[in-house]
């Protein structure tokens, strides 16, 4: 399909009783291409869930336009809904069902016949290592298992566009990787996934493109590699002692970490610093900044600035 999965233009949402002038999302422009995983990252309260809920036709925008799967999702949500599926943030399956029932009923609700529902359920429960607990009541599952059931319910559908709002929160590292594998499977089926997460390693390894949202606006957008190129200091140097802080300031942005320093720098400066450290016999590590570094660079600085500056909503 050539059209984008989601096109948002000047999208804005003001919640009732919000302080005057405060919009949860504001002048948000975003285009999610069809096919692949699109990651949304940003601090708590940045507006990720608000955007997901608007795009999934669960929440009305205050203004702006929104096309989902080529259809006006604000005016004709009923034409979008049969083609999407969503794991809302903090959603849980109905606790009195068994794991198998939760997944199968969701498929039957969406119109699959019993046989197809059973087949898809068996498959997805295998995929997410839930087969052993398939006949267990949801109420007797752990929090992470419940979350996985929720993800299984949605991944088992045939929706063209899946919304997953923090699907892996609370999962152990192995379970997370199983969810990743399942998401990659969905991506191979040429479906689109809009994913929000606070695990930046996850966002980086899964997403074809990413948007960093801050105060309801997109402040960085692109492939993970593009994002890395977009920042001022794309390299990180970790030093274990051996330097005084003043010496380092000329290389880039310095912060103190336990028993040493973390320096963000451009490539030549980073190499120079690493060479210097080796000369002095200081333990050093040099590498590209990862998403977490970028996140902290772009979003972190304003956090410090906020302490004394009034909140005017202006961001770089």
């Amino acid at each position: 399909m050539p059209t984008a999965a989601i096109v948002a233009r000047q999208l804005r949402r003001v919640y009732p009783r919000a302080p005057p002038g405060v919009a949860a999302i504001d002048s948000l422009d975003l285009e999610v291409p069809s096919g692949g995983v699109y990651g949304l990252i940003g601090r708590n309260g940045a507006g990720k869930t608000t955007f997901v809920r608007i795009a999934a036709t669960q929440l009305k925008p205050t203004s702006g336009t929104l096309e989902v799967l080529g259809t006006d999702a604000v005016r004709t949500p009923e034409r979008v809904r049969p083609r999407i599926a969503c794991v809302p943030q903090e959603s849980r399956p109905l606790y009195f069902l068994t794991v198998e029932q939760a997944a199968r009923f969701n498929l039957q609700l969406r119109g699959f016949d019993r046989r197809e529902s059973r087949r898809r359920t068996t498959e997805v429960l295998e995929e997410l290592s839930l087969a052993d607990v398939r006949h267990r009541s949801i109420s007797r599952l752990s929090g992470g298992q419940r979350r996985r059931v929720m993800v299984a319910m949605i991944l088992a559908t045939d929706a063209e566009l899946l919304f997953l709002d923090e699907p892996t929160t609370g999962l152990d590292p192995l379970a997370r990787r199983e969810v990743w594998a399942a998401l990659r499977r969905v991506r191979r089926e040429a479906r689109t996934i809009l994913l929000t997460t606070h695990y930046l390693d996850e966002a980086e390894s899964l997403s074809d493109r990413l948007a960093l949202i801050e105060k309801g606006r997109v402040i960085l957008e692109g492939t993970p590699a593009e994002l890395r190129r977009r920042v001022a200091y794309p390299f990180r140097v970790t030093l274990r002692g051996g330097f005084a802080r003043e010496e380092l300031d000329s290389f880039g942005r310095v912060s103190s970490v336990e028993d040493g320093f973390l320096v963000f720098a451009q490539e030549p400066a980073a190499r120079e610093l690493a060479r210097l450290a080796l000369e002095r016999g200081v333990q050093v590590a040099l590498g590209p900044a990862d998403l977490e570094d970028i996140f902290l660079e772009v979003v972190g600085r304003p956090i410090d600035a906020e302490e004394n500056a009034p909140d005017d909503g202006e961001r770089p």
Partner: protein
Amino acid sequence: MTTSPRWRSVLTLIQLNGLVPIRAQPLYLVNLLASPLSFLFFITIASQGRLLNYGVAGGMILTMLSVGTGLQSDLTHYRHDLKFQDVIVASPVTAPVYLIGMALSEFVYSLPGMAVFLGLWVTMGWANPASAVVLFGALVLVWAFASTLGFTLATYFEDVRETFMFSPLISLGLSVLPPVYYPLAALPGWAQVVARFSPTTYAAELVQSAVGLAPLDATTQLFAWLALFGFTGGLLALSAVRARWREP
């Protein structure tokens, strides 16, 4: 047999919210039996048996109302605590399908109560085709009204505890003040006027008339049917516009 997707959704909702939880915890049924029957018991004792017949007629209407209040707290809980409504909204299941499926699933819980009342109905010698038709029609409309009210309110409440505050008010407004358990004529004049604003008043009048407790002339009966249809249809129309399926 091929089932249409919509019908399959409705059947699945009945299973998921009615049959499955009941099979897991049959005490649900006893619970729903308890409230209309204890009311009947109370009324019968207090009136030394004279109002048993009104109690039977009213008990069925009350049972249909309790389907609506039950639906209201279930749907609020599912929407708020489990985000179930958001899952359903972003799916092929439409609001009317969800309403019908969940209202029927909630009706399943009232079956034992209804069975007891129908037994009493027969015992009273009220079983005849004409009264059966009136009873069926009036109960279906009260069920539809109460369910639509419960569904609509459930899309507004921020917390299940709000439903606990609201449900007694609804019961008061729809089953205690209106003459569900006694003849309309037993109310003082002003209260009769107020009662005219509740659909259950008309349902009760029709049922009481059909079994010969308080006969109505043809015009009044026609008016009662129109009022009952009007309230239910009006609420459905209001719900179509006002229910917060997509949060405004």
